[in-house]
């Protein structure tokens, strides 16, 4: 037990001392995972809305596929993206392998289905009477959908939180696509793995603490964005006598 407590103490001291190596991996984690979750949301939210509101053949299949992709193991995503971005791969000339840009790409691939699936779940259970009322008041189909999505706001933000959480925590994809190169493609998770393998447990714990810290900081803001009322929000929708 003492060993563990000592390790925590060491880890705190390392963070406070703002060691250059740790700052570098901390910043890169924010950059890569942050950008990837934003891209994932920019693609995933509209996709999720389409899954919820669209009426087309194969919608069920697409939804099933999305759900399956939510569980795609990050190492598999990493392997596939490696095969695409490697020099002999179809996009090899872009020279994106072992770069932060490549890492953002693979993490976007991981975040996007998750955000889409959860957005679909959040939007599709919104009371349809919102749309009906909006249409009744003269809104276009699109505007009515926007109203519906706004009602699902909490769920959509939760989708983003989930997406960010997933990519911040993963290690396999960024390891394979990034190569864990010092000061270039090393992030908190891959740095931790390296340190743990070298037996530098206090340093590895420092990375762990930074990961938790980062997650808490981001989620403080996101949870606030979900809105002040924590309880069930029921809207007063009057139904008109037909």
């Amino acid at each position: 037990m003492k060993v563990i407590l000592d390790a925590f103490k060491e880890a705190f001291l390392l963070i406070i001392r703002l060691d250059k190596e740790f700052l570098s991996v901390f910043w890169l984690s924010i950059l890569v995972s942050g950008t990837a979750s934003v891209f994932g949301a920019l693609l995933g939210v509209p996709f999720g809305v389409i899954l919820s509101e669209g009426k087309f053949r194969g919608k069920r299949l697409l939804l099933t596929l999305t759900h399956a992709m939510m569980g795609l193991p990050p190492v598999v995503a990493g392997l596939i993206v490696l095969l695409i971005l490697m020099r002999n791969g179809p996009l090899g000339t872009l020279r994106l392998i072992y770069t932060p840009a490549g890492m953002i790409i693979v993490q976007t691939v991981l975040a996007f289905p998750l955000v889409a699936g959860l957005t679909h779940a959040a939007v599709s259970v919104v009371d349809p009477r919102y749309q009906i009322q909006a249409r009744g008041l003269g809104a276009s189909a699109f505007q009515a959908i926007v109203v519906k999505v706004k009602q699902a706001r909490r769920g959509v933000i939760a989708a983003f939180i989930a997406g960010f959480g997933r990519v911040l925590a993963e290690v396999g994809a960024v390891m394979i696509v990034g190569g864990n190169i010092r000061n270039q493609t090393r992030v908190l998770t891959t740095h931790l793995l390296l340190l743990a393998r070298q037996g530098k447990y206090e340093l590895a714990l420092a990375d762990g603490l930074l990961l938790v810290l980062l997650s808490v900081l981001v989620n403080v803001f996101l949870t606030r964005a979900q809105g002040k009322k924590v309880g069930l929000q029921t809207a007063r929708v009057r139904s008109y006598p037909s």
Partner: protein
Amino acid sequence: MRFSGVRLIHALLALLLVSLFYAGSGCSLHTHGKSIVVATTSSLYDSGALDRIIAAFERLHKVSVKPIPTGSGEALRLGRMGEADLVITHAPKEEEKFIKRGYGFSRIPFLKTEYVLVGPKDDPADTANASSMEEAFSRIGRKGSLFVSRGDNSGTHLLELDIWRAVGTKPAGKPWYMETGQGMGETLFIANQKEAYCLADLCTFLSLPHLEALSVAFQPDPPLECVYTAIVVDTRKLGRGEKNIRKAKRFADFLLSSECRKLVLEFKVKGMGLYMPFR
């Protein structure tokens, strides 16, 4: 009728899962607790040679071996912590220290190969015309050509650092110098993608696929030897039993045996025999 169909499928799936579990456990449960852990430098592992040696040993002696590929420095650390029963490394200075501090019994060199400088086919730093490995490194430093290092305290990494020191260059932090912190295989893959120079053991380099952008840029003559040494860890020092010491000693003896020598000489990579028994 439909109901029992679903039940049948469930039963078959359960049967499949159970039989997979048994098949899997059959492989590992028998050897659990009876195996020795061998921490090895990854370059011997990545070429596939160690697997062959271990397979032959396991067949002959009925002792199971668990190889853990890392760098030489880390292998020795695992030995110090008692996490490994035998270490295979190629870092002579570190090995001496290990023995001196009583962590291991003796150095048993059993295999050798050579180090080469690999690099992009167009050789931007003109290392082919260097007169020595040191000069080749010096040219790379001056030109600022991309260089990938293992950066993991492995035997290869420590030798690489020695060479940089010998030519008075400090590559750490320079924009052309990349440290992967990983094994020989992964480091070579990165060097390949980045079209960079890298110090590698010839055997691993030739045994890996997908290294089309790299070729041997400079091969010293006489060869820069890479000697693999086995050390049986003295686990008594950490209060652990002697059970594994006997098995580890058996493995070390096997490494010097004629069967192993034959295996080494027959191990060919792309038609070339690149490993040699040490003596």
